[in-house]
C-alpha cells in the first residue's frame, strides 16, 4: 500500500506515493533522485544522511518519509540554489575539509544548523555540535577550521560571503 504525500524539497514540490515504512533518505534518493545525501550506517549513528525538515535537522535514514508529508525538506543540494557555493562549502574546499566526501553533505547540513543557532561558536562548540557526524578521512581539523572561518568572516562583515582570508596552505 502506498501513501500519497507531497514533499517540498529545496523549494520544489514533489507529489509522491510512498510505502509506509520507506525512509526519507531512500525516497529522496530513489524517487526524488537527489543523491547528495548519503547512506552511511543506516541506523542514525553517522549523520551522512542529515537533512533539514522545516529547518530542523534529521537523520533521514531513520525517519519515515510518510511523516514528512507537507514539510519543507532541505538537502545539501539546497545549500547552493543558484549554482553558487554557500560560504560553508567554499570554506570546506579552502580548508581541505573534504577527502572522500561521503560525510560532507551531512557535515554541511549539520554545520549550517550550528551557525544558524550559534553564529559565533567556540572551537569546542563546533566539535560537540558536529559529533553526530562521523568522518573517517580528515581527522576533523579541517572541518572545524572551515566552520570557524565562516563564523569569523561573518563577524568581520555581516554581509560578507567572502572566502576565508587565510587558507590552510598559506599558514
Amino acid at each position, binding site marked *: *500500500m502506498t*501513501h500519497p504525500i507531497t514533499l517540498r524539497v529545496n523549494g520544489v514540490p514533489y507529489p509522491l506515493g510512498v510505502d*509506509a*515504512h520507506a*525512509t526519507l533518505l531512500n525516497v529522496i534518493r530513489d524517487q526524488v533522485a537527489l543523491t547528495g545525501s548519503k547512506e552511511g550506517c*543506516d*541506523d*542514525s*549513528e553517522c*549523520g551522512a544522511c*542529515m537533512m533539514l*525538515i522545516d529547518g*530542523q*535537522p*534529521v*537523520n533521514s*535514514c*531513520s*525517519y*519515515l518519509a*510518510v*511523516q514528512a*508529508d507537507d514539510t519543507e525538506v532541505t538537502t545539501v543540494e539546497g545549500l547552493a540554489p543558484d549554482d553558487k557555493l554557500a560560504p560553508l562549502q567554499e570554506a570546506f574546499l579552502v580548508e581541505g575539509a573534504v577527502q572522500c566526501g561521503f560525510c560532507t553533505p551531512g557535515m554541511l547540513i*549539520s554545520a549550517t*544548523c*550550528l551557525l544558524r543557532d550559534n553564529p559565533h561558536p567556540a572551537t569546542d562548540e563546533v566539535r*560537540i*555540535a558536529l*559529533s*553526530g*557526524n562521523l568522518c573517517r578521512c580528515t581527522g576533523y581539523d579541517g572541518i572545524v577550521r572551515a566552520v570557524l572561518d565562516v563564523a569569523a568572516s561573518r563577524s568581520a562583515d555581516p554581509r560578507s560571503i567572502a572566502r576565508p582570508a587565510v587558507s590552510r596552505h598559506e599558514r
Partner: protein
Amino acid sequence: MTGYIRANTVEEAVAALAAGARPIAGGTDLVVGARQGKQSLPDALVGIHRIPGLGAITETDAGIDLGTLVSHAAIVSHPAIRERYTALADASVLVGSHATRAQGTLGGNVMHASPAMDTGAPLLCLGGTATFATPSGDRTTDLVDLWTGPGETTAGPDELLVAVHLPASAQATGSAYVRLQYRRHMEIAVVGAAAAVILDGGAVTRAAIAITALAPVIRRVESAEQALTGTSGGAPAVEAAAQAAADAARPIDDVRASATYRRAMAAVVTRRAVQAAIARARGEEIPIPATESTQGSWR
C-alpha cells in the same frame, strides 16, 4: 488497520491505538531500532507528531507540564527547566545528536522504557507523573509505577502518553544527572545517576537519588537517599549515599559494558550527581551538562 495514518487529535490517536496501531513521533527509537534489526516496524502506525498542543511546555503554580511531543531541544533551551529542573536539562542535552534532539520527544523516551535512557532518572528524582489519554478518559500515574522492565510499562496498548508533569520545586533545590559515555553524541548511558536535594539551613532535608543502566528499570534507591538526608551533605554522607547506590545496583553484561565495570562505576556516577546537585542547591555554578563539568579531577 495496516499502513500509516496521521492523527490530528488525541482522540483519533487513541482510536487508532485501540485498533492495533503503534504510535510514532520522532522515530528516533522506533525507526532506528528497526534499521538496527532489533525489531521490525509495526505493520500499523499512527503518526502523532502533528497533534496540536502536545508539544507545549507550560509552567503553572503546581509545577511544569511537558507535552509528550516536547523535543529534547526544547527542554534544553527552556529557561525554567535549566534553572529549576536542571537534571532534566543535563539529560536531554546528551541525547543523540542535535538531529536526535530536534526530532526525538520526551514521550518517546519515557515510553521506550529503556533502563539506559537519559531522562528517566531525572524525571524520577524530580517527582514526575505521567498522564495518559485512554478510551475511558485520562489517567495519571507516578513514573515510579510506570516502568516494569526493559521496554515494558504498565500502560495498555490503547493508552497514549500525553504529558509528563513535574511538581513545583522548593527553594534551594538542586538537581543533576551524570552518565558515563564513550562518545559525546549518539550515545546512551553506560551507567548514570541523578540526584535532587533540598537544603534547609545547610542540611539536606530531602534527597532523591536514581540510577540508570544499573538495573532492569531506572529506579530510586531509598537507602542512598536515607544516607544523605539529615546530613550536611559533606563528603562522608555523599560517599555513603554513593556506596548505597552501588550496593543496590543489579547491572548486566552487554555490548556497552560488563556488569563488573558497571558495578564499579555506580558509586562514581552517583557521587558526581549528588555532589553536583548539592553544589547547585547552594547556588554554585555547575554548567549543563553536569556529565562534562564533573569529569576528571572535579572535587
